[in-house]
């Protein structure tokens, strides 16, 4: 009789440890699947490379904190993007991102392969840099739409992340794309 409470406590501890281990596994899987998207999203909110990494880590931490509350009511991808954007917004509040020049972007990207299609590669890299720079300089609301669209989320998923209807998503996306094109036109 006297060992019952101890056994119960031990089994509770074991249960908690198991839950924690499962959460850790789930977290590692989520980072494996969506880590690159988190990194890109951090990039869209922050222009300075060192701080981008820090922001990506903060997003991952926020995902870890929210993971026990994830009840599977939405897809894992929606869950991650929602947290990532919320964290990005908090980051915007803390500091306004300085504009990054195209030269900086070229330095941070992978080196150019000095082989036959050099011109083509340089052109591709410039286009990527232009797109990235334009996304960074968009207002937050447009940026959210564009990043979610670029990450391949459907209108329904974007609506779920932002808390708006699908019709509204379509309207906003049109405006955000227009703004992106205009910004890219300016940076050209």
């Amino acid at each position, binding site marked *: 009789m006297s060992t019952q409470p101890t056994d119960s406590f031990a089994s509770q501890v074991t249960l908690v440890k198991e839950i924690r281990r499962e959460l850790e596994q789930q977290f590692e899987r989520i*980072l494996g699947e969506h880590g690159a998207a988190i*990194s890109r999203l951090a990039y869209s909110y922050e222009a300075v490379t060192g701080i981008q990494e820090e922001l990506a880590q903060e997003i991952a931490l926020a995902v870890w904190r929210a993971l026990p509350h994830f009840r599977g009511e939405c897809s894992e991808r929606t869950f991650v993007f929602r947290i990532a954007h919320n964290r990005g917004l908090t980051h915007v509040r803390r500091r306004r991102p300085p504009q990054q020049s195209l030269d900086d972007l070229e330095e941070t990207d992978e080196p150019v392969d000095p082989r036959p299609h050099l011109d083509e590669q340089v052109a591709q890299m410039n286009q990527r840099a232009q797109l*990235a720079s334009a996304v960074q300089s968009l207002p937050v609301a447009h940026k959210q739409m564009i990043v979610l669209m670029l990450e391949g989320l459907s209108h329904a998923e974007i609506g779920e992340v932002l*808390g708006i209807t699908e019709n509204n998503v379509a309207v906003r996306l049109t405006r955000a794309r227009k703004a992106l094109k205009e910004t890219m036109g300016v940076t050209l």
Partner: protein
Amino acid sequence: MTNDRELDVWREQWSGVARLSPEFLGQVQERIKVQDRRFWLGNLLAVAGVVGMLILAVYQFSHQASRIEKGRAIGLCVLVFVAVTCRLWFTRGTWRAETQSICAFVELWHRRVLSQIRRLQISIYLAIGWLVFCAALAAANWATVRLELMAHPTAYLAIMLVMVLMLRAIWFWAMWLRRRKVAELNEVTRLLEEMETMND
């Protein structure tokens, strides 16, 4: 691939932006450990602080013969009770978002900042009220207070000096925090408006 050629090109370009570093997972895991430690330590310190203050108050009340000490002990208990109640009252509705979306998050953020500003304002009024109450109490019991003061003049003078300096420091800190919170409120309001105008 979609039928939208422009979107496909953008997606392809976007996928090459900001590659993830190989140490990312390790760095995050390390930060989780640090955060866990901070979380436990923070909670322990908060509980220890409140319990410590209450123990001190009870000890002073039961072991001190002086009426001033007893009064201070009761005052401390009342202060802790009022502070905790006020905190709970002003943070109601700010624990979690109504729905899990970015709009709901921004609204929650707006409510939190407003609640923080209100808490700060009420703390200032409470502190002023507390000072007036202490002064009135001291005036009403001046005969007893005077005897205590005459018995330990240096100690009471030192306490008064420290309190004045502390009040000054707390006042400057509160004003600095208020400015920061008002700036944050403006930023969140702007963000909310930006999101709302996109719906028009």
